[in-house]
């Protein structure tokens, strides 16, 4: 349960960052959710194939719920994969926003009388 709780908490943190700066799902909800669903599907497929080859071995743990959605495939993994996709998109869109913000600020403070300095 602890691991699932941590994952849900982290997902919540990502959503807060997303909401605050309108980065991803909060910018285009449908587009964002489609990316998350397809991205998660891609990794689930990868996991299933890897489990088929015997690469991943789930270990019963006090930290997990013990609920399995497939052989060697704990419920927590689904949430981890959603989180992985969400985190990656927040990292990319966040970096883009940060770069844009800094460019605008340096342009704004360099000289107001440059002519091209005040693009709205």
């Amino acid at each position, binding site marked *: 349960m602890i691991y699932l709780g941590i994952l849900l908490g982290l997902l919540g943190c990502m959503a807060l960052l997303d909401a605050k700066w309108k980065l991803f799902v909060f910018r285009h909800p449908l587009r964002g959710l489609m990316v998350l669903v397809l991205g998660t599907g*891609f990794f689930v497929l990868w996991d299933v194939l890897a489990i088929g080859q*015997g690469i991943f071995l789930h270990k019963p743990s006090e930290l*997990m719920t013990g609920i399995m959605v497939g052989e060697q495939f704990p419920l*927590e993994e689904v949430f981890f994969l959603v989180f992985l996709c969400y985190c990656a998109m927040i990292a990319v869109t*966040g970096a883009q926003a940060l770069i844009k913000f800094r460019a605008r600020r340096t342009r704004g403070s360099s000289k107001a009388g440059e002519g091209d300095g005040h693009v709205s």
Partner: protein
Amino acid sequence: MSFWFLAAAGSVFLLGALAGRKKPAAIALPVLAAMVLMLLLTAIFDNLMIFAGLFDYGTHTLSGLRIGLAPIEDFAYAACAVLLGPGLWWLFEALASRRKGSGHSIPPNDKA
């Protein structure tokens, strides 16, 4: 197998960048920064999770290269997430803007 998934994610990334007419200079820095961050986070948390005993690996198909406890193959997940996500995002963005200007000669000035 990691290779094929990396190749697929890389292809989606390239397709998305092309369809969205993204300038390489504009996307290189944010994608690279996100990539470094995600790989770093993977190195930290994969090690923690394996140490906590959440999962283990059948080693017969792994290369055996590890960073701490984390097999090098696990880093492919983070790399793919940084490639696949933006690729899909740009593809959908391009599709949406194409649909909006479906006549592609009608100027979108019918707001309000």
